[in-house]
């Protein structure tokens, strides 16, 4: 109901949850039913010393299910998609930002997705674009090595991109076996026998590269160095298109970082 009584009053409490999406949905449940807007929502283990009171929000799949269903019902399917994407993003305080969006969305309905100039909406859309953009970049920047027919790559992205790049690489390499290891989020996309899963390994050690593998790395580096035109040398332009933080995992520029 536009103009109705606010659903939530700001209050001096921090919600602590287990870090899962379900757990976050339970924080939304808590906020709505206590009619309060917490100071912050923090995954357990990430809380910094604070003067605010804390409340542990238990994960309850029934509550989570209700909140999940309420988003397409009261706002829209697109809003649910946005909320799910944001949860995989690196947006600072994404939980509170998402909660603010949802509280407003429950009041306004589907129209909130059109309010692109509204701060609570714009901040989420921007973070979602960041996720999509980084996923797009990595579709190009990922470098596999061939270990005896098994393709493996490592990445260190800011956002949790594996779910966004999975279908692209599965289509591309449908007959191959491959793995993309996200070192930053301790997760790996593994595809074999035409099935994929995202696993949570402790640590993955890559084997020594074979001679053939080394040969193709050298060929690729040579191609990379040859294709640049000296008279157009423009390292700033290169860096703006291909930020340095991706270089550590890229065969052709890795060594430039040491210089």
């Amino acid at each position, binding site marked *: 109901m536009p103009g109705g009584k606010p659903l939530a009053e700001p209050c001096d409490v921090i919600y602590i949850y287990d870090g899962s999406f379900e757990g976050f949905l339970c924080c939304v449940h808590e906020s709505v039913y206590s009619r309060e807007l917490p100071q912050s929502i923090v995954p357990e283990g990430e809380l910094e010393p604070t003067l605010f009171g804390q409340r542990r929000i238990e994960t309850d799949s029934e509550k989570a299910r209700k909140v999940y269903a309420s988003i397409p019902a009261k706002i829209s399917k697109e809003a649910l998609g946005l909320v799910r994407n944001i949860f995989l993003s690196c947006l600072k305080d994404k939980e509170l930002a998402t909660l603010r969006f949802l509280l407003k969305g429950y009041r306004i309905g589907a129209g909130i997705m059109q309010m692109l*100039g509204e701060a609570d909406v714009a901040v989420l859309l921007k973070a979602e674009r960041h996720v999509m953009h980084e996923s797009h970049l990595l579709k190009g920047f990922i470098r*596999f090595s061939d270990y005896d027919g098994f393709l493996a790559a490592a990445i260190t992205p800011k956002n949790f991109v594996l779910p966004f790049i999975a279908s*692209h690489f599965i289509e591309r390499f*449908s007959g191959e076996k491959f793995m993309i290891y996200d070192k930053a989020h301790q997760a790996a996309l593994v595809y074999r026998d035409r099935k994929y899963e995202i696993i949570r390994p402790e640590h993955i050690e890559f084997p020594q590269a074979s001679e053939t593998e080394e040969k193709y790395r050298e060929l690729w580096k*040579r191609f990379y160095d*040859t294709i640049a035109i000296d008279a*157009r040398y*423009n390292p700033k332009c290169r860096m703006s298109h*291909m930020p340095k933080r991706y270089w550590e995992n890229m065969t052709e520029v890795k060594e430039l970082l040491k210089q």
Partner: protein
Amino acid sequence: MDIMQKLTILADGAKYDAACTSSGVGRAGGQGIGNTAAGGICHSFSADGRCISLLKVLMTNYCVYDCKYCPNRSGSDVPRTAFTPQELADLTIEFYRRNYIEGLFLSSGILKTPDYTTEQMIKALEFLRYKHNFWGYIHAKTIPGTSPDLVYRMGLLADRISVNIELPSEASLQKLAPNKTKQSILAPMAQIAGGVESGKELVRYKNAPRFAAAGQATQMIIGASPESDYQIIRLASGLYRRYSLRRVFYSAYIPAVEDTLLPSVDTKPPLLREHRLYQADFLMRQYHFDPEEILSEEMPNFNPYLDPKCNWAINNIERFPIDVNRAPHEELLRVPGIGPTSAGRIVTARKTGSLGLAELKRIGVVLKRAKYFIIAKDQPAGLRAGKESTVRALIDPGVFSFGTEQMSLFGPAGGRLALPGAKDVSSIAEAAEEAVLCLAANL
């Protein structure tokens, strides 16, 4: 010769080709190896800041033609080599599996005859498509003088094919590329345009792609010959219309050869000019500008200090300010600082309420430039700024990064806007300020 040496020579010979895009066709994988993404994917960026999407190589750098500007011309003393079709196909697949590339961009010098060379290229592509079952992106460049049935076969194997128009006029072509004629370039272009249009009926194999499903592209060399920017963008606009081209690429001439017909070898490549051409090209393709709106007989060359859209805006200042809460989409697109994306977002967002400057900023409008041209909720009468502050906000900050030599290209000598070259002033800030005063005085 080993594969490392061959790759070095044949990549070096291909590096001046501007296009390295893999866009224009979306194809899910499933059979064999490979897919394509409609938007294209850049896999790396070379030290010159250009996108590397495809393995860009020549089939061979042997050449019977003697185009003056070309490092591989028959008279040039460079090491020569050729890939075998299988070598090239294997290399492409191994690079592709490692995700180094999105596919292959194959061009070639002319070994024996255009037909013989094209047959070699077709063999390599067939090897890729049918032996390796490769369904990633292929861009192939046709060779002027190739017989139509071979062009047709190539089009069935490639996602995009292109014919280089090489130079922006027939006279320059005659002078600098004596073995190529306008006719030998335009005939395959027309054939490809026809093939792309009727492509749906041309599928021969069950899973084969359509005839050049990603359409055709071309490129021309800028700065080796005397055409004006106006001539060039009119040519590009005509090519887009007549040959349903997807892209025209512009390649700043980099002197590699000493020849009295060419700019001297110490000439700096006209990178700023090339940049302005791409901006104008973008205005024609994405913003519905006509070439006559961008330049004219009276003003045949780009303003170095302003991008073509800002230049249009200050020369049509009487059309502004426009009301972002009411103006139709095509008028929003004309505002400096509003692009296709933010124009679309404005149209969506204003349905839910009137937009002010804060909202526009969150939407992605570049207010630094746009604010001088718009009416918004909290700016109901426009900004009413002086000419000088308007111009100051529009000066392209990139202009000075192209180096001082670039500026002289647009010096008063060529009947162009009499602006100060950076040579005449002691600092960039001073040059920018002089440019502001000069442009404002011209308004």
